[in-house]
């Protein structure tokens, strides 16, 4: 069942984009839309959107870079390590949980490292990869998405994102312990 689902989703993810192109353009052709002209008209905005997010992205990534390079993460891990045992979370996976919302490349590096050291099919390896799949790079998403529309007052977006991250990490710990311990 799991294998079948995996293959199915894999196939879908390969053919999805060509299929979408076909559907969009084909539908447009049937509805007698001047597809080329309309496409170019819409594509014009691409440049502006990308340029608009630069200041937001620079601000966010530079702050995350400073935090990561300073060794503050190691300090945070020492402080939090006693707590993780209580919820059944191996302390080795704590850097993963903390890095996931901050940096995609950083958490990818941690996941790879954990699998190299502990093996991909160990509890730690499974938990790290589940954690990686259980959340998005929240702060990157915030910076980019709000950047495009020049939002400065983010209201409750940050607490919401953090609640979602914590819930995702706790759920990952719970389900992996339930199934693989």
């Amino acid at each position: 069942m799991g294998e079948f689902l995996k293959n199915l989703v894999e196939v879908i993810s390969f053919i999805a984009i060509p299929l979408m192109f076909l559907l969009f353009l084909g539908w447009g052709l049937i509805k007698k839309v001047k597809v080329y002209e309309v496409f170019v008209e819409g594509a014009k905005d691409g440049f502006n959107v990308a340029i608009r997010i630069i200041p937001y992205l620079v601000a966010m990534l530079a702050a995350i870079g400073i935090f990561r390079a300073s060794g503050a993460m190691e300090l945070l891990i020492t402080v939090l390590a006693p707590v993780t045992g209580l919820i059944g979370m191996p302390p080795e996976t704590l850097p993963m949980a903390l890095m996931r919302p901050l940096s995609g490349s950083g958490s990818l590096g941690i996941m790879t490292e954990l699998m190299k050291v502990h093996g991909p099919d160990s509890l730690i390896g499974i938990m790290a990869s589940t954690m990686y799949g259980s959340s998005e790079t929240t702060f990157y998403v915030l910076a980019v998405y709000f950047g495009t529309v020049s939002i400065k007052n983010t209201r409750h977006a940050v607490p919401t994102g953090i609640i979602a991250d914590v819930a995702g990490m706790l759920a990952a710990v719970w389900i992996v312990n339930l199934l693989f311990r």
Partner: protein
Amino acid sequence: MLNYIWIGLILIGLFVAVGNDIIDEVQNPYRNGEPFVSTVLLKKAPSGIRQTWEGDLVAPPDYFNGFYGTQRTQEPIRQPAVISKSADGTASLTMNITDASPAWWREMAKSAGSKERLLGRVVEFSVSEDQTSARVQVVFESIRFVKLKAVTQAALDYAAIAVNIALGLIGIMALWLGMMKVAEEAGLLQVLTRILTPVTKRLFPDVPPDHPAVGAIIMNIAANMLGLSNAATPLGLKAMEELNKLNPKVGTATNAMVTFLAINTGGLILLPATAIAVRAAAGSSNPGIIIGTSIVGAGCATIAGIAASKLLQRLPRYKKAMEV
């Protein structure tokens, strides 16, 4: 809130960096100013005017670990080095640091004057009678302010990375915006939107069900679930632009925007392709075993995010921020 998180990351980063560097000053883990005693197996003797010796610097692991204070290495040290004597009699040592070098020296070279080299001042140098080896005492260049240097470098590097990411977006952004425009003109998005109205009406009560924003949101979520991040980001940004057209207070996030972001940061994905690829590369017997657990984890994150956005938006302080 983002204000405090942002300044918090920077301030904590700077304070911790300074703290770590002060600890380094006291503990001196790089042994600044202390001579490292070892033997150089000479390969090339000086010729003509230039007084240089080339060879391999060797040291037993016990001495290396004892010198630097901890278990830094298991292997005997064998590191190519060049010693050159200048006219006034002082000698210097240069080591090209490669992946074969001891990890601790690689670490030191990162913060040294030149990233690929570690330099040292030779305090004692005596060549054996048969000219094949030499005893050498060398004081390596001082390594200090490691974390502050790293922090500076990181700030500059990440600023450049941010621009690269944004520039890389231009092409795919244009492609998907063009496609979306065609779908919109052809009425395809409206059809999609109508089918999913019962769901979107509840998630985004402030957005009219036939608004173009809904179409973009649906496309973004679909792309995210299929793991098509190249398509998801441009579609998501398009959705944000459409949502912003309904924004009564420019520059402030609306309820719909926050709910939309909660769905996005939850990261619900049917096939966590990156994690599976890494697992397969690491030699897992069943790389796909995490599909189910990831869906549970991301599902919980998404539900918690949506619930939190709906509850928090009622708090007086967030309501007030929305008043025009």
